[in-house]
């Protein structure tokens, strides 16, 4: 089996300061990897380098494209990369308003990615939008409402629908449950788990919430000061952490 994503020696510097450095890993189809660490550990910088939002100073990000197999997304042309980011890739932002068009209806938000890849049949586009709203548990009669009229949890689910409608293979998530109430988080996590399984999605999830990665991620990467300090199976890293910092991180979580 070919990895979907092969990351080698990614490094990003902000002047003399390290954003992240020496990051390498493979991600296989259907795999979910969590990246945890405290604020400033470089996890978001890494995610943005992988998703093409930032250009790393070193390293390569090979993605298994449908047409040509492994391609370095850092050196590929911008049109190709942007095409990837609206077909095979998806990016779920922490704040839904960063990932939605707030002045466009829910249906238009979901339909945009379809129209961007030349869907030109209104009925079909609307049908897909209704289907996807249903899959993220948003009632069909909200299809013409703008996201400004939605709750935080609904906005986040709408963002997920908008991203997954084109059947991407790789989803980047930046603190997907970050700003949500605990009860809403559980619903979202359950939804994401189901979608990951049904669509055989690969995902990279950045979060500081260890409960989120325990439930969603197969594998875990722990970052500190821009470096990866520990990797492994999620439950192994959480239940038998090897590195001093990971032990501190795990033991610092309040038990309920």
């Amino acid at each position, binding site marked *: 089996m070919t990895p979907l994503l092969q990351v080698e020696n990614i490094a990003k510097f902000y002047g003399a300061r390290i954003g992240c450095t020496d990051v390498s890993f493979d991600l296989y189809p259907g795999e979910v990897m969590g990246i945890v660490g405290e604020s400033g550990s470089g996890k978001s910088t890494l995610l943005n380098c992988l998703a093409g939002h930032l250009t790393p100073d070193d390293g390569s990000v090979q993605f298994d494209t449908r047409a040509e197999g492994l391609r370095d997304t850092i050196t590929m042309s911008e049109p190709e990369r942007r095409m990837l980011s609206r077909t095979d890739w998806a990016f779920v932002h922490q704040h839904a308003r960063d990932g939605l068009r707030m002045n466009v209806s829910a249906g238009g938000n979901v339909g945009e990615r379809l129209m961007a890849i030349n869907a030109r049949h209104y009925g079909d586009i609307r049908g897909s939008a209704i289907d996807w709203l249903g899959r993220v548990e948003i009632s069909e009669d909200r299809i013409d409402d703008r996201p400004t009229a939605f709750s935080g949890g609904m906005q986040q689910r709408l963002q997920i629908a908008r991203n997954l409608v084109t059947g991407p293979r790789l989803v980047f998530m930046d603190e997907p449950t970050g700003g949500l109430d605990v009860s809403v988080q559980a619903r979202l*996590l359950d939804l994401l788990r189901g979608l990951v399984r049904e669509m055989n999605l690969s995902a990279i999830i950045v979060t500081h919430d260890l409960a989120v990665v325990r439930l969603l991620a*197969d*594998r875990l990467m722990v970052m500190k000061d821009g470096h990866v300090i520990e990797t492994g*199976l999620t439950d192994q890293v959480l239940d*038998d952490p090897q590195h*001093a910092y990971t*032990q*501190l991180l795990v033991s610092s979580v309040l038990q309920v």
Partner: protein
Amino acid sequence: MISIENVSKSFVLHNQGATEIPVMQNASLTVAVGECVALVGASGAGKSTLMRMIYGNYLTVTGRILVGDVDVAAAAPREIIHLRRHTLGYVSQFLRVVPRVSTLDVVAEPLLATGTPREDANIIAQSLLARLNIPERLWSLSPTTFSGGEQQRVNIARGFAYPYPALLLDEPTASLDPANCATVLAMISEAKLRGAAIIGIFHDNAAREEICDRQLDVTKYTLGLAA
């Protein structure tokens, strides 16, 4: 099916003066197809620790843990994930699930994860829940609110949903009444008959006598270490 060779394990507590706590030394064990081996020893002797090492939940640094042809001690995470999905089942003492997910879905999940169609998975899950006397009105509810015994039976149903060739059972009969206990033992027997290699921890002597072919006292690998 399962072969453990010279496995050792210690915990290093970096934030408590780098204290090193050895918990297992040179443990060895083999379990054949269709065989059930009980781990015995006093509470805290290291039965669960060994079981967690076999499952890959605890990292093994020295020795080999072969499950089928995969060495858990040396395998990459994705190989262990694949192993857990298709080969090695584990019924832990505690049920850990996403809040809000229905009991039926919790039980069906191992089947869905291995590609069983939703309807077939539901049928299997329903028959297991019925067999373990979980009232049907609870199937659509999340098991997080269930009693200890009910949670334990949901956990067993989930562990037996997919026919794993190897099974780890940590106190599967601990909080069950005699009737349910008998059901679980029957399920274990059936698993043995289809060729599953099983390692179990049984608090209940009678149950252990009934189902296990032999037993291994882990104390000999751990005695004096934890002190």
